[in-house]
């Protein structure tokens, strides 16, 4: 390697390194505050402390003990019934490698019968959701599920449904569309493929028959006449 190309490489590494190591926040600041507050309310109700930590290509940290951006600090006074910490390592697929997105999830807990990823699956979430299009909602829901799952195991009391008056202007938006169509979508997809195959087959064979008829209707060639 020449001195010039070595210098270029060093310069490129120096310029690109900070950009490559920069991590994207997974949650918007207000979402992180809401999640930490939900966990803090659960902690007050249950005596169990909760926290989350996501590292890798995206990052997010927070806890019921310190709020957003503050890692869980579990002590016997604040957390008399123990703690549950949700950790994930998210590495997105790189353009030059064959591997897909890699997500490792770990739930570390000191409560008996702690939540597992099987419990998350029952709620409709898997580790892959943390690398999906709605990764922020997946993280909020998976971490938000921890107090519910702890209550289900009997390790702490359930968190009561908090209610508040709805401001007059606030209302549900977006009609999500037909429940029947959504539920039958997989079967409807298969039905559509079968139907299209049938139509395609029919059109192809009718077209082929038409061609053959046209071909038969043409005057015989000189060679055919002589044979």
């Amino acid at each position, binding site marked *: 390697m020449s001195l010039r190309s070595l210098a270029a490489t060093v310069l490129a590494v120096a310029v690109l390194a900070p950009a490559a190591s920069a991590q994207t926040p997974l949650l918007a600041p207000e979402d992180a505050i809401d999640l930490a507050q939900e966990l803090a309310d659960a902690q007050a109700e249950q005596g*169990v402390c909760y926290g989350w930590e996501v590292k890798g290509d995206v990052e997010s940290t927070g806890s019921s003990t310190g709020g957003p951006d503050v890692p869980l600090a579990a002590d016997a006074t*604040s957390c008399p019934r123990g703690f549950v910490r949700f950790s994930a390592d998210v590495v997105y697929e790189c353009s030059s490698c064959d591997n897909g997105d890699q997500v490792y999830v770990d739930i570390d807990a000191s409560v008996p019968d702690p939540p597992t990823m099987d419990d998350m699956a*029952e709620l*409709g979430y898997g580790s892959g959701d943390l690398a999906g299009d709605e990764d922020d909602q997946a993280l909020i829901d998976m971490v938000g599920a921890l107090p519910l799952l702890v209550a289900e195991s009997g390790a702490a009391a359930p968190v009561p449904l908090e209610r508040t008056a709805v*401001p007059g*202007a*606030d209302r549900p938006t977006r009609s999500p569309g037909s429940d029947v169509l959504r539920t039958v*979508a997989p079967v*409807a997809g298969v039905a*559509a493929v079968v139907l299209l195959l049938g139509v395609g087959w029919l059109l192809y064979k009718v077209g082929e028959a038409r061609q053959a008829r046209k071909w038969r209707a043409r005057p015989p060639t000189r060679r055919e006449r002589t044979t």
Partner: protein
Amino acid sequence: MSRPMHDQDPPVGLRAHVLGAGALILLGVVLFVVACSTATGVREHIADRYAAAGTERVEGARTDSLVYTSSERPSRTAGEISGAVTPADRRVAPAGVFLRYDEDFVTVVPRAGGGSTIYVDAEDAGYRRGFVYLGGWWGTYSGRGESFRGGGPGGGK
């Protein structure tokens, strides 16, 4: 003497192809119709499967909500309901699970003594019931932007 070439490949079998293609088309239509006719709405599914426990009116709502109970824990109950009738969206919060359907919101929370309580609400009532958790997700929310205020000492009630 051999026959002319154009007489050697008549459209034999076209009828079989038409019948085969027609059968496929019919199968596709039947599949779709059967799937649609056997699919139930979430209200019917819950009424068929869970024990009715009366009605209640969420404060400010225009309609009563239906209440059911399940002997299963909330995550399993919500999983069963969403497996049977696919929700458009879902939210899981410390207090319970929320499922959104076309015109209904379903809320599944732990029940004292074990199992779950299921609330089937019209949109407006469901949004009111779960506003703390659903505001800004499934509707407008003007109460955002608070700072973290903590939760006080762990009581472990």
